């Protein structure tokens, strides 16, 4: 019940295309859903986060879509750039608790 399932494991997109990464969770108590970006040799960096009272949140080229009834959320990267090539992690947690549950990650490669 504590798992967060992320897909796909890897993704190759052409420059200018749309990258879509999906996550599903089981614990209905989760009320905080962040996405992190990690480059090799670096720690994860927060990209964007959403709470379940909102169905969509957009920040620049990054958009989170959230479907509470399906217990799913996704990250869309518009106009993908080679500099977006990194590993992306979705995560979920309860704001009253101290921990986040991370997905296994999606390695994104954007080809020029």
């Amino acid at each position, binding site marked *: 019940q504590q798992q*967060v399932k*992320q897909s796909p494991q890897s993704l190759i997109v052409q420059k200018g295309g749309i990258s879509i990464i999906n996550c599903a969770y089981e614990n209905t108590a989760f009320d*905080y859903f*962040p996405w*992190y970006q990690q480059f090799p*040799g*670096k*720690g*994860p*960096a*927060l990209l964007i*986060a959403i709470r379940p009272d909102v169905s969509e949140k957009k920040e620049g080229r990054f958009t989170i879509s959230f479907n509470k009834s399906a217990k799913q959320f996704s990250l869309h990267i518009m106009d993908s750039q080679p500099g977006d090539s990194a590993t992306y*992690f979705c*995560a979920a*947690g*309860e*704001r*009253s*608790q*101290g*921990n*986040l*549950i*991370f*997905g*296994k*990650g999606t390695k994104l490669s954007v080809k020029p």
Partner: protein
Amino acid sequence: DAGVTQSPTHLIKTRGQQVTLRCSPKSGHDTVSWYQQALGQGPQFIFQYYEEEERQRGNFPDRFSGHQFPNYSSELNVNALLLGDSALYLCASSVYQGANYNSPLHFGNGTRLTVT
């Protein structure tokens, strides 16, 4: 403004030994969390410290222990190292916001621990 700093960056230890990893939180942050990231996996929560106390703990054995100091810095100790403890250990800091423990986490670049 210094972000989260961790030391050392790399460490090689032998099975059965003990190790201490260190973390200085981002300026203005008072809460420190530790995560273990195995190769090709997402980070796994070990524990969180606030006000020098362990507030939450993940599914890790007692061999993993920690400490937070009055200046908010933190240490992670692992005793009786196993080969399976080889991983990237990440420290993340945040600001306590009442019931909202999950204020944005700022991660350091981690300590790569190799157990041989």
